[in-house]
């Protein structure tokens, strides 16, 4: 009798974990409630998991799909968000509802698929004309395609949107960038060491280079002057001076390229922040 009681007790204890699962908290209603809470409290990674379940349970729920994609975007999973678009709307990407189309564009921009942004907007007829123009101009600027962006800005007048007006200003400014020619920088350094770097506004680096080359050349001169052609001292410093001289020529070339890249990046960063800051 006692043995039976013990067996029953063990049985109850073994099954007690299953009793906890009696309430279904993962049905559509509860999942939506919890996913919305996670989304509102900005726990986007967790929210995306809940919205995945919601979309699985209710595949016609477009609002859940949008929230799911937004959760991926807010958690910086732009690639996954784009994969979701491909999965949900593979054949109807160009006919998406405006809020979905806008979300698709945002993910494309954040994933830096600027070529696709431009071509998508060309095919899309759902979004407003002004909106499309703004994002097309933005995508051209983000491609660092300054000439095309400038021509586009000339062809398409400024709309009421502030973003559009600001992008126009950037497009016009991009046309006025004054680049430094890398070949000229190298040539200047060939003539007088360090001047190539000064040409690219690296004054301090230019002076240091001039000092390195001139000090070593002076030491080589001293060595040769004292002991003639057989001066080890002279040859060692001549080797140093030549290395620094050639290094400075290549360095000046690279410095000009870096200078130009910096100018490009400044325009790019302005356009980038203008485009994505309100996402």
């Amino acid at each position, binding site marked *: 009798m006692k043995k039976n009681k013990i067996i029953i007790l063990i049985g109850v*204890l073994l099954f007690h974990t299953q009793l906890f699962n009696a309430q279904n908290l993962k049905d559509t209603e509860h999942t939506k409630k919890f996913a919305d809470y996670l989304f509102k409290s900005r726990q986007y990674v967790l929210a995306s998991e809940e919205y995945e379940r919601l979309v699985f349970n209710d595949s016609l729920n477009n609002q859940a799909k949008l929230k799911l994609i937004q959760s991926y975007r807010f958690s910086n999973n732009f690639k996954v968000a784009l994969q979701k678009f491909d999965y949900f709307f593979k054949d109807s990407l160009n006919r998406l509802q405006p809020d979905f189309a806008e979300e698709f564009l945002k993910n494309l921009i954040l994933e830096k698929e600027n070529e696709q942004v431009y071509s998508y907007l060309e095919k899309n007829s759902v979004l407003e004309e002004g909106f499309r123009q703004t994002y097309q101009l933005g995508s051209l600027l983000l491609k660092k395609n300054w000439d095309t962006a400038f021509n586009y800005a000339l062809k398409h007048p400024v709309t009421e949107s502030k973003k559009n007006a600001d992008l126009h200003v950037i497009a016009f400014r991009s046309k006025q960038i004054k680049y430094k020619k890398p070949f000229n920088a190298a040539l200047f350094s060939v003539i007088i060491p360090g001047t190539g770097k000064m040409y690219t506004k690296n004054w301090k680096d230019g002076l240091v280079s001039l000092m390195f080359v001139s000090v070593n050349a002076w030491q080589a001169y001293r060595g040769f002057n004292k002991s003639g052609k057989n001066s080890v001292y002279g040859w060692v410093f001549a080797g140093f001076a030549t290395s620094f001289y050639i290094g400075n020529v290549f*360095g000046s070339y690279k410095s000009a390229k870096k200078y130009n890249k910096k100018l490009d990046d400044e325009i790019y960063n302005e356009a980038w922040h203008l485009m994505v800051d309100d996402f």
Partner: protein
Amino acid sequence: MEKIHRYFNLLLLAFFILIINLTVFSQSKKDIEMLNGIFDQQNQKTDYKTYMRGNSNEFQLLASGLFLFYKSLISSQDGNHCVFNPSCSVYMIQSIKKNGILIGFSYGIDRLMRCNRLTPENYERFETTNLLSDPVWESNEKE
């Protein structure tokens, strides 16, 4: 007394069953993976021997050998004083591997001339080490 002993055994059994249930859910696989190797991170050292591989000609092999010699016997004894990351010697060997012996060496020499704190405004700075960033490969390039 015997009765009490039995009840005690029963309670003990119930307690163990409860504990088993708890331990099953105590730690997920992700938690364990997260903790893996956290104490090894501080002991990580760069293996400069990797630069001996992938040389496309004898000059690069020679440069890699000299680099390894410098890193093993000279640089290891005097501490890290270069203002850049990667350091000038690493930059030199990487530059030679990327651009060939002549141009790569020239860029390396140029880097030596820039190795000072006069122009920090030209570079990004690593917050943790306070070193200036000047990589051979740009972020959009592959090593």
